[in-house]
């Protein structure tokens, strides 16, 4: 194991010096590990091929630009690049959902079911009740402004008229309400995401 690490480092340094063959050996040596790693995340041959290629393009650029400085840790470094590219791939895909083409047209690939499943709706209820409990902790004047703005959808002008304070005061109370809520969330390590 140690021997191979030293060899990797040697190959990397001779590749940086211009020995193209060293790169070929490095790719041959690690291609299977890297390829299977990517495949185990994306489960698609073509995407795996693309990410594998992008990984090594990045490796080649970094080495040629002389920015590589992790001698002896070639494989973990390449794996990390592959891992980041896999994450990029999923990020891109969640922004642009892919339509799977199975040959026949399916209306469900165009229409999505926006209603939440049982688990997500439970989490949503939990988050909403947590938020309400935190609001209950706020000082009365801040709570009043926040409830009017967020739950009753009133403008700050309406809030100021209703509560008899200036718009600036209402804005300030809203600001402090949010600051205080964040403080409570941080102090109690409350997770408000689903």
């Amino acid at each position, binding site marked *: 194991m140690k021997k191979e690490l030293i060899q990797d480092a040697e190959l990397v340094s001779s590749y940086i010096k211009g020995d193209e063959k060293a790169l070929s050996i490095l*790719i041959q040596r690690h*291609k*299977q590990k890297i*390829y299977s790693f990517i495949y185990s995340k994306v489960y698609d041959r073509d995407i795996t091929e693309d990410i*594998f290629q992008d990984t090594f393009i990045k490796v*080649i*650029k970094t080495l*040629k630009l002389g920015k590589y400085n992790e001698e002896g840790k070639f494989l973990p470094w390449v794996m990390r690049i592959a891992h980041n590219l896999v994450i990029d791939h999923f990020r891109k895909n969640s922004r642009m959902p892919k339509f799977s083409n199975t040959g026949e047209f399916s209306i469900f690939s165009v229409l999505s079911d926006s209603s939440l499943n049982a688990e997500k709706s439970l989490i949503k209820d939990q988050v909403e009740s947590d938020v309400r409990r935190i609001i209950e902790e706020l000082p009365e004047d801040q709570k009043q402004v926040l409830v009017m703005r967020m739950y009753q959808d009133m403008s700050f002008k309406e809030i100021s008229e209703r509560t008899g304070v200036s718009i600036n005061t209402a804005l300030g109370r809203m600001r402090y309400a949010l600051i205080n809520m964040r403080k409570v969330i941080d102090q109690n390590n409350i997770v408000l995401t689903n």
Partner: protein
Amino acid sequence: MAKIYSNASPKNDNLKPKDETISFLLNYSKALSVINYNKLKFEALLN
């Protein structure tokens, strides 16, 4: 003896990149040259 009810997952030994991908990468590496100019580095693809 404990019975194992799960099937062994099929081994896929074929998990390796296509030869074209490898040869593309090697050619890309040969074609890419980095030009140093003062403290700036330029990448150039010489195909």
